């Protein structure tokens, strides 16, 4: 009897151990992510709050027709198939693009993805008379897909989009355009505010819970169509924590596992406490964008070059606690669009002073310029300390810079209006300091270099115009070979650098700090990040 009871208790102990292990194996893995935004970005299909928001409620819940490869970190990503398996311009009429759609894809609500859904979504953001038109989503994406002129369904799995003019770079616009479920919108009474709480896309995550300003729970979509991009974590909880110190405290306290943009001064503490810091080349640049309009002190290329040679960028990187890389141009030197500029950005005070002297300036007769800057904000890094550093550096080469300090929202108004506008010209503002996203050819190069986009037609703020650059950009629009596109873009970029179009200072590295519980996170060289790569 005693033996039987002993055996029974052994069996029970083994059984309970097996159950515990089994439960452990199947326990839900959760990653809590402290994001720097004050609210969860829009969940209806097109996220608001800029490019950085796409990683949270964009490419998690939804898919584009053409996607950006965001699950590689050791090289720049490229365009890859999304909900379209193939896309090509019609050889007879290069304005027409045919998209072959992926078969067998279902939205989270179970409805099937077909050509009708693509047309419905294009109407949703481009046709203000359509019943599903949503002004908020439209505002986000319409400026991102400016080439679209018209579109039609060819068959259930083929869509034709016609561009306003021949635009070989059109596919780069498509990762911004995400497809949400028409059935879900119908089911929820055609009410976008209801869709925000119960969205339905085709993405690798589904939205499980949304508490505005507090959290959004994304759960793994086990039926996701792309088996190579299956989420490695069952649940990701997004927690908006706009204050940087609060984010750090939440990480140190264990309330979150990952945070965006830790402030540079806490990095030593984070590292010594065993937290990991992940950063990568990021398509961002922190420049002074010069005005080359008549009357601007920057019209003389020698002055622009001198400014570029007066900055000790390594010292600025140090000021940033290592959370930046020195800029050699508009894009990182490892980028295929970098090219081979003859003007090398560096720190060379004698050369800078010589250029200034050649241009007619000296200590007794310094060049005076006013730069409009923001007191801080997204993409502005450590705006005030960095600007003060540059002010002192430029003074070393007889450039006396004064600042017009405004809030970021106000700075955007000055930016959109252009250097020539009264709000800038009347105040003597001849340069603007604004962090630029440089993720695709248009964002990195065209919008700043093409004379067609001189403000207010675009954000060629300073009125840069170079016929050689314009001709190359025209050629890119009609060049469908990607390698040729890259080499033409490289040619434009090297001209921009040789012309010292801006004072390029540093690139952001989009730092993330994470607890040792996070086993893997691949940080792409982009603002689009792939949260499916997070493994706990």
């Amino acid at each position: 009897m005693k033996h039987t009871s002993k055996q029974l208790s052994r069996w029970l102990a083994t059984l309970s151990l097996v159950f515990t292990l089994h439960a452990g194996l199947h326990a839900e893995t959760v990653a809590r992510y402290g994001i720097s935004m004050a609210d969860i970005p829009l969940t209806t299909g097109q996220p608001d709050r800029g490019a950085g928001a796409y990683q949270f409620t964009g490419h998690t819940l939804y898919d584009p027709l053409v996607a950006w490869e965001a699950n590689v970190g050791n090289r720049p990503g490229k365009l890859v198939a999304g909900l379209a398996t193939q896309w090509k311009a019609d050889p007879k009429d290069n304005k027409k693009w045919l998209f072959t759609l992926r078969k067998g894809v279902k939205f989270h609500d179970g409805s099937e993805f077909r050509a009708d859904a693509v047309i419905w979504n294009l109407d949703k953001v481009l046709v203000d008379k359509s019943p599903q038109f949503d002004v908020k989503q439209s505002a986000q994406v319409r400026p991102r897909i400016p080439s679209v002129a018209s579109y039609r369904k060819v068959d259930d799995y083929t869509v034709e989009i016609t561009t306003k003019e021949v635009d070989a770079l059109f596919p780069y616009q498509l990762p911004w355009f995400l497809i949400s479920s028409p059935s879900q919108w119908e089911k929820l009474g055609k009410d976008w505010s209801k869709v925000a709480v119960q969205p339905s896309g085709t993405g690798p995550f589904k939205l499980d819970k949304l508490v505005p300003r507090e959290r959004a729970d994304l759960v793994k979509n086990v039926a996701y169509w792309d088996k190579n991009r299956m989420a490695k974590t069952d649940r990701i909880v997004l927690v908006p924590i706009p204050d940087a110190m609060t984010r750090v405290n939440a990480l140190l306290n264990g309330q979150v596992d990952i945070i965006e943009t830790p402030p540079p001064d806490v990095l030593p503490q984070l590292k010594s406490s065993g937290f990991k810091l992940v950063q990568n080349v990021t398509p961002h640049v922190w420049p002074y964008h010069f005005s080359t309009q008549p009357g601007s002190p920057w019209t003389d290329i020698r002055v622009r070059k001198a400014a570029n040679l007066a900055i000790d960028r390594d010292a600025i990187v140090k000021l940033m606690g290592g959370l930046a890389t020195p800029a050699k141009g508009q894009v990182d030197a490892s980028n295929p669009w970098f090219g081979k500029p003859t003007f090398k950005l560096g720190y060379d005070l004698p050369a800078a002073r010589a250029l200034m002297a050649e241009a007619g300036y000296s200590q007794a007769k310094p060049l005076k310029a006013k730069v409009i800057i923001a007191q801080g904000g997204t993409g502005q890094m450590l705006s005030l300390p960095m600007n003060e550093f540059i002010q002192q550096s430029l003074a070393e080469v007889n450039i006396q810079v004064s600042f017009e300090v405004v809030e970021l929202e106000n700075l955007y108004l000055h930016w959109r209006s252009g250097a020539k506008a009264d709000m800038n010209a009347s105040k003597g503002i001849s340069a603007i300091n604004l962090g630029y996203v440089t993720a695709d050819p248009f964002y990195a190069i065209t919008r700043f270099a093409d004379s067609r986009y001189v403000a207010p037609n675009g954000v060629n703020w300073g009125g840069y115009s170079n016929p050689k650059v314009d001709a190359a950009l025209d050629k890119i629009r009609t060049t469908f070979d990607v390698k040729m596109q890259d080499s033409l873009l490289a040619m434009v970029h090297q001209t921009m650098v040789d012309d010292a179009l801006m004072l390029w200072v540093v690139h952001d590295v989009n730092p993330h700090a994470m607890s040792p519980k996070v086993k893997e996170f691949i940080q792409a060289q982009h603002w689009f990040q792939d949260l499916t790569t997070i493994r706990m």
Partner: protein
Amino acid sequence: MFTYVLKRLLYAIPIALSVTVVSFVLVYLAPGDPLNAIAPADAPAEVIEALKSAYGLDRPVPVQYGLWLLRAVQGDLGTSIASGRAVTGEVMSAVSNTLLLAGIAAFGGVLVGCVLGAVAGYRHGTWVDRVATILSVVGVSIPHYWLGLVLTIVFSIWLGWFPAMGAGPGGSSEWLWDAGHFKYLVLPALTLSVIPMGIITRTVRALVSDMLEQEFVVALRARGLSGHAVFRHIAKNTAPTVLAVAGLQIGYLMGGSILVETVFAWPGTGFLLNTAIFQRDIPLLQGTILVLCMFFVVLNLVVDILQPLIDPRMGRG
């Protein structure tokens, strides 16, 4: 009494109306563009114009104000430009979170302030008085933001006793009155309570020490009244002033503290205001300011009504 209350209620109407005008105009005076909250920074002019028209921002400001006021009196504060959600719902959700936080902070601050002030007043000139005075001066002078960070570092990161931020493990929508949720309140409430505690301590101390030297107290003691009985008389005489000061302090707390709520990511009115200001979300900003101002108006009204109940002399004037 009825006439008194009615008068006070009538006074509240022009005040509320002025509040709506000021809150509406102030928002427009600030530089920046509300459409930055929804449109990408480089959105072309036609997109901006379409948005202006969609949100009615292309109309003259007085027309916008009139329409807004018309809706506001019906309880509709419009739709947030940034989130697309109803402002009334946004504000009410934030108000309930702030009420929770401010209620606890006000209770703690007023209670500790009254006790410390009374003790200091009774022990005027002793070391107890000096300690209470130092505490009250520190309470009034210490920056909220800094104190919040220090408390977080000590009690949350070093000791691990309390969470560093948030309004509960599942967010404020799943709030429960248990220890697991209550611990989220401790640090922000403690941070918020320090200023009212300091002010009330100073007020009560000054009133009590002054009162103790008045002739009626000497007379009460000469009649042989016990310490407790004398204290009751002193408490009753100091109450109207303390109530007025506490009312103002509670009003400030109910208004939410932008800094404290941001430091603790507490989803209250301060946090909401901060977001609305940075996004130039005009409807949200106007709605929040209006509701907060109305808090002050209502709270002052309540204090005005309570004061004559405690001290009937005040009602006679």
